[in-house]
């Protein structure tokens, strides 16, 4: 299932946040969205997932979601959004219960996703006992459990320290290599974007418009920490963004 955005524009009251975004998200690829603060990245993600409606333009699902998909458009949040009163397994089970999946069938799915996110030993732990990185892995496991057609990730690693971030990026790459998934990945961090993105969409400052789409051909599995090719790409991205970011920063100061 692909996602197509065509001519999406939006304004909050007088403030225009997004102008004429047209973008294809091909299935099986990770599309990163980068852009200065306040350019509408999170808003765009809410449009894609149907949590909000754009003023103009539309978001289309091209084709049917794959067989067995319970929640085609599934979010992974920056703040994890785990229920603190449910164990790791309980948090995963939460999203299955509403689909009538209980008992052994639920247990099979839970065991599988916890295994894929290396959380098997922590199935009974409560969120308060987990580190930030583990919490986000639980959120990833929960997302995997509903077999999403597209994962919508809004700065999923931003709340984590940089070492944990590296580890989780490796985990995400391993997950993708095992079974490629489609994802829209919003981030501030250009290093994340070049590590995880098949293509990187650079947005301008508010109102957000697409400035450039950078394709990175190197396979995910071959990209490593401090990879010279990626550094060059990252530098290119930063050159694109620097002036925008500076202008956006100044804009916020003037209100």
């Amino acid at each position: 299932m692909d996602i197509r955005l065509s001519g999406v524009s939006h304004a909050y009251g007088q403030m225009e946040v997004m102008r004429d975004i047209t973008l294809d998200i091909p299935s099986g690829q990770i599309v990163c969205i980068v852009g200065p603060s306040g350019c509408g990245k999170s808003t765009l993600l809410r449009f894609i997932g149907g949590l909000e409606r754009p003023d103009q333009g539309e978001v289309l699902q091209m084709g049917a979601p794959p067989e067995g998909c319970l929640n085609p458009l599934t979010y992974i949040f920056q703040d994890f959004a785990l229920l603190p009163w449910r164990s790791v397994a309980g948090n995963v089970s939460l999203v299955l219960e509403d689909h009538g999946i209980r008992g052994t069938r639920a247990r099979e799915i839970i065991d599988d996703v916890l295994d894929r996110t290396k959380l098997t030993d922590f199935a009974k732990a409560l969120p308060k006992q987990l580190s930030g990185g583990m919490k986000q892995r639980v959120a990833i496991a929960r997302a995997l459990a509903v077999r999403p057609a597209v994962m919508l990730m809004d700065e999923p690693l931003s709340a984590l320290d940089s070492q944990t971030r590296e580890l989780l990026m490796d985990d995400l790459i391993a997950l993708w290599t095992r079974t490629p998934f489609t994802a829209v990945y919003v981030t501030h961090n250009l290093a994340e974007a070049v590590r995880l993105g098949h293509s990187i969409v650079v947005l301008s400052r508010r109102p957000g418009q697409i400035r450039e789409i950078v394709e990175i051909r190197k396979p995910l599995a071959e990209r490593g920490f401090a990879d010279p090719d990626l550094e060059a790409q990252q530098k290119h991205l930063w050159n694109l963004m620097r002036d925008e970011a500076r202008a956006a920063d100044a804009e916020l100061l003037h209100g």
Partner: protein
Amino acid sequence: MADPGTTARRVDFRGGGFAPQSRRWVGLVVFVLLIAFAEWGTRTGFISALTLPKPSDVLETFRQLYETGLLWKHLIPSLSRLAVGAALGASVGIGVGVLIGLFSYIRAGLVPLIAAIFPIPKIALLPLFVIWFGIDEGSKYALIAFGTFTPTVVATYGAVDNVDRSLIRMGQSFGLSWRSIVLKIVLPGAMPGILSGLRISLAIAIILLVAAEMLGAEYGIGAYILEAGALYDLERLFAGVVILSLLGVLVSAAISMIERQLLGWRT
């Protein structure tokens, strides 16, 4: 770094306090000291027998009460009134509070009404309840229920308001039904606030229980205290008061136990 001649001084510690810790025995010690002081004072005549009964006499009265079987005769009707009234008031209160928390129209309609009835001393309405629900148990249940209802409502809708919106958003993004979101996200998330509200509501229920029984009941702790008071029988008066205090401590302990059971997830 430092010159050989400079003096070294340890940095003063100033980070302690402001972190409540479990020190159960302190409460007990305070009780024991107070009672020991009263016993000593009444025995030596330092405190006159007219101002305070001897704690040992109160204990003796209590023992007689127990042995004659009068204790249960008074306690059982009181406890059943408390249980029925508080259960009614708290459950309706939680229900209405959740509705106010979830629906804007219900909130707009009921919050001013609740604000209007909250400050009414419910005891003042007892005659009205007697007319509405009869002189027997009905009016007592109603008084206790009404008194528990208002604080429970206010605590509950405040607790629902405080449930983390990002969790609700998460539920919606996974396509959870409205019912599931309320039952699995909103209610558990509001539980800490609801339980601390119950602590207050149930203390109010005990106060109202006594008030209701003072205004017309043959048996009950309230009636017992009223009778003792009318006769200036301080030993019996205090025995009754001690029963009420114990009841309050028990209710509070029960809520603490429920909190430990249900809210172990809190950090």
